[in-house]
């Protein structure tokens, strides 16, 4: 009986979690320029509009480019910090690690404000790299913690064995360390990619209506009246997020990545 109750609670909970997504999907299928659910008539024209109308197509490309670059930048910063922290535990690396977690702990509007001021005072405004750097600093906490998790899963014996066999530090890194942490690198890239793609406040502050990401475009087009294209753009982003995490779920160990305890059996 209590098992049934638990299952019922979990199902209702998941249903509520998914409900707004279903409604947006339904709204995106409307045949006319109205936001009805269930949709009145079925049409895919709001999806083709997304790829044909430059007003939507360009922000879409911008968002994807920003997300890829942010992922690469955040990873390239997090990897050396996490590596040196794990390998040598130097104080300096620990301090950098803590500093790297801070932007994620602040309300994002604070980071956004700081980034806006930085670019305004350097006179370098409205460039794509501004948004990328803003996102990378804001999201750095994710690859830092996830890659550290990967390093910690390497047993010291394996490293010692490789060194006794005469491998130098670079060889150990390439042949032992890298293969073990690769899944963690890939997953943290996916996390940063998805969150950067969906980030709004920093893009809005730093883009200064010259670099327009899709969330910013959705935000500004809502003032000009609702259109089902907003819904179809949302659906596309929802799908991309689900695909990214679905792939981690299939090929990676998602529960472990999120800190689940592996019971020895």
């Amino acid at each position, binding site marked *: 009986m209590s098992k049934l109750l638990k299952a019922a609670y979990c199902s209702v909970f998941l249903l509520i979690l998914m409900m707004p997504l279903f409604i947006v999907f339904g709204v995106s299928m409307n045949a006319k320029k109205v936001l009805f659910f269930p949709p009145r008539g079925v049409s895919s024209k709001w999806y083709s509009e997304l790829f044909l109308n430059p007003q939507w197509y360009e922000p879409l490309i911008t968002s994807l480019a920003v997300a890829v670059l942010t992922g690469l930048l955040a990873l390239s910063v997090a990897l*050396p910090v996490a590596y040196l922290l794990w390998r040598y535990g130097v104080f300096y*690396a620990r301090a950098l690690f803590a500093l790297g977690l801070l932007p994620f702990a602040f*309300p994002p509007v*604070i980071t956004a404000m700081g980034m*806006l001021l930085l670019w305004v005072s350097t006179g370098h405004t409205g460039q794509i790299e501004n948004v990328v750097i803003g996102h990378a600093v804001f999201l750095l906490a994710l690859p830092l913690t996830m890659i550290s998790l990967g390093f910690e899963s390497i047993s010291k014996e394996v490293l010692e064995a490789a060194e006794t066999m005469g491998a130098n530090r670079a060889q150990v890194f390439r042949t032992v360390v890298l293969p073990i942490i690769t899944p963690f690198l890939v997953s943290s890239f996916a996390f940063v990619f998805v969150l950067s793609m969906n980030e709004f406040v920093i893009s809005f502050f730093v883009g200064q209506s010259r670099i327009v990401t899709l969330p910013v475009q959705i935000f500004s087009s809502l003032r000009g009246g609702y259109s089902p294209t907003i819904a179809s753009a949302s659906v596309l982003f929802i799908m991309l997020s689900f695909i990214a995490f679905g792939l981690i779920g299939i090929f990676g160990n998602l529960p472990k990545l999120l*800190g689940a305890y592996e019971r020895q059996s």
Partner: protein
Amino acid sequence: MKPDRKDAGLRAALLSYPTALLVFAFVIPMGIMFVSSFYHRTETYYERGFELTHYLRTFDWLYIKAMWTTVKLSTIAATIAVLLAFPFTYFMSGYSRRVQTVILVVVLGVLSLSEVIVAFSWSNALSRPAGISNFFVWLGFMERPASWARGLPAVLIALSYFNLSIAILMLYPHCTRLDPSYVEAARTMGTSPARSMFKVVIPILRKPLIATWIVLFVFTMGAVVTPQWLGRPDQWMLAVHISKQAVELGNIPFASALSIVFLLVTIAMVLVANRFADKS
């Protein structure tokens, strides 16, 4: 492994790049923000100077009310989310790894959604033509569909919804680490499931539950889009005012001063919550 001098050089080289980025794109901006909050606003833009006018203006009744709204809404949304998400996470951590993975994919998918998309989704889900009121009409609970898309309830629903997935991810590791033998022991001694939940599980997980609540609280404090879209100006939180001042009105010094005050209040609230957690 003995650290030698060549090693130290390599380490310094490896760390110089992360240091440069963090100093350039985080430490310096925070410094500029602090300094700018004392600058003088001119007719067109702003210039260097030192004045406290912007800080005095943050004590304007409008902003004090906005701060109070921010703290109030964040407290309610964080509490609702923890209350709803904790049982779910606890139950779900008992299922098989496969089921857990599928649920986690859904949770992460929802978590990563843009605040813009979540606000848009709920404005649809609560609207007259597309909303859940149509479902209630169909069930016969209501006569005709209603619009709930603007106002305090809509803001609270969307903010709490946003927090649910974060709460699950934060509580998940602790729920999986919970040794099931405690509950089993309590159950064998004849304790009811509900009682063992309150007497065994919740006391053990008290610390992570409070930590989660604090994270949700801070996270909700930063909401910009949700209160603007789903709320009336009464429900505008401080982050909305900062965004309006900085982006739309271009009043950089005042936006900086508001941000500094906002940051201080956030830190103070977290310290208070932590103190509360240690005492109780």
